[in-house]
């Protein structure tokens, strides 16, 4: 089984392979697609779901992009391995909860296709940093390649047909994972969320729908999929992300200026706490790592340390901590282990200096 391989492999989001950026952690494109003539997974009988999985996995494995890909079937994975994949955003909670789902994950972990989730196929492409066009381009190529080998459900009037009316049309969900400590500290996040909602964009927490925004990390995505071209959807999201990034920087600069020494003090305390804590809960770690990321962005810590902070945010999640420990741990055990990993990783971090940004 390859969840261990997935954990061990270096990839864009956990290692400094792609361009890491302040504010935008990653860009994601998701396309919902279905096969013609077969019921959607939620309504399909078990043999039909098997047929869907066989057809889709077969077509995916034949694509060059998925050469030597990880093929993971949910029925063959234990709870912890499934949770690791969810924490990495390689599969959704819904896929992990069912037995008939599968995922085909490219070697470099930038592309993952979920099979038998709400739709037959959920194509996902993720790049570290803000790369809307590049990410879209990869998804488009994958979509074309799959459309060439599978007969996809499509109507001239409604576009790509999906199980849920909120995905029909382009089936496209484009999103950015953004780190907004400045707007959160300044108390502007509610206002920003409302403005985005009113203009057709959804704001969610770190792990998507129904999750809290631990560590000031939010996912911003388009809501409408019908009646807008892919180009228009990307442009709309892109415009707003640029706007949010600008506002975030304004909030950060204002905070740093107004608070002066207090600003650095707050971030320094987080580093001190992370370096000496013996028990660290997941949300506590996320919130303090958020401060370290902010410190890297603002020049209080060397910028090249940022990727390590990003990695700790991902690997500090409960299933990752247990997978690394190679055993099931109770909540105290996880907090102890998480604290040890963080302490070790931060032991040679330099002290903070006043902001330069």
């Amino acid at each position: 089984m390859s969840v261990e391989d997935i954990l061990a492999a270096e990839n864009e989001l956990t290692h400094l392979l792609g361009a890491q950026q302040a504010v935008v952690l990653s860009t994601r494109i998701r396309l919902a697609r279905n096969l013609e003539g077969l019921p959607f997974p939620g309504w399909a009988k078990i043999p039909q779901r098997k047929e869907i999985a066989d057809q889709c996995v077969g077509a995916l494995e034949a694509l060059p992009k998925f050469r030597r890909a990880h093929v993971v079937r949910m029925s063959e994975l234990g709870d912890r391995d499934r949770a690791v994949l969810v924490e990495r955003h390689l599969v959704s909670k819904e896929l992990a909860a069912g037995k008939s789902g599968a995922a085909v994950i490219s070697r470099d972990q930038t592309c993952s296709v979920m099979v038998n989730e709400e739709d037959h196929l959920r194509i996902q492409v993720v790049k570290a940093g803000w790369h809307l066009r590049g990410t879209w381009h990869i998804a488009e190529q994958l979509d074309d390649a799959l459309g060439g080998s599978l007969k996809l459900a499509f109507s001239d009037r409604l576009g790509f047909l999906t199980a849920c009316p909120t995905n029909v049309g382009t089936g496209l969900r484009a999103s950015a994972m953004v780190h907004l400590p400045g707007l959160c500290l300044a108390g502007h996040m509610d206002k920003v969320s409302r403005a985005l909602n009113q203009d057709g964009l959804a704001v969610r927490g770190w792990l998507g729908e129904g999750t809290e925004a631990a560590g000031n990390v939010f996912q911003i995505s388009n809501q409408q999929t019908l009646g807008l071209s892919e180009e228009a959807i990307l442009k709309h999201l892109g415009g707003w992300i640029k706007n949010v990034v600008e506002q975030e920087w304004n909030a950060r600069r204002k905070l740093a200026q107004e608070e002066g020494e207090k600003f650095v003090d707050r971030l320094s305390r987080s580093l001190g706490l992370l370096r000496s804590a013996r028990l660290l809960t997941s949300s506590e770690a996320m919130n303090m790592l958020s401060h370290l990321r902010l410190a890297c962005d603002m020049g209080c810590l060397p910028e090249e340390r940022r990727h390590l902070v990003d990695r700790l945010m991902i690997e500090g999640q409960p299933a990752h901590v247990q997978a690394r420990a190679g055993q099931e741990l109770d909540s105290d055990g996880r907090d102890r282990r998480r604290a040890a990993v963080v302490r070790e990783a931060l032991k040679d971090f330099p002290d903070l200096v006043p902001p330069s940004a």
Partner: protein
Amino acid sequence: MSQPLKCSLCEEAATVHLSQVVHGKVTKVHLCEACAQKGGAMDPAVFQLADALTTASPAPTLICPQCGFTDIDFRKRGRLGCPSCWETFGDVLGGLLRKVQHEPSHVGRTPAGASPVGRLRRRLDDARREMEKAITGEDYEAAARLRDEIAVIEQQLATS
């Protein structure tokens, strides 16, 4: 009353009668002694359950010939049964799409394996839209180019 009321949950004679007012709407639930005790008569879930039972009881009016999914299944799950359901439930979905989506018709990509005719039709729609825009924007050069393209596509469609 000639006929005694039946329990909303089990069809026994109802002896407990509850009314609840939520947002100005009155919901009445009738329960037998046993169900009232079991469910906890004051439990709001009882109202919801009874509500679901009473609204779900009418027979389905639409059934997808391809997969057997009904309009009642859709109301319960909020998801469709198969791609053909989009045709079966077209009218029901039309209203919903106008609420949750930007426009009720697709203007994006087509599958790589789609029929050439479908592609032409979509390009025709796009070109017509672009031409209108060009005319409004007084870009007559672009409008003329699009008019020629439209004529070519129309001819291709007529002969295909």
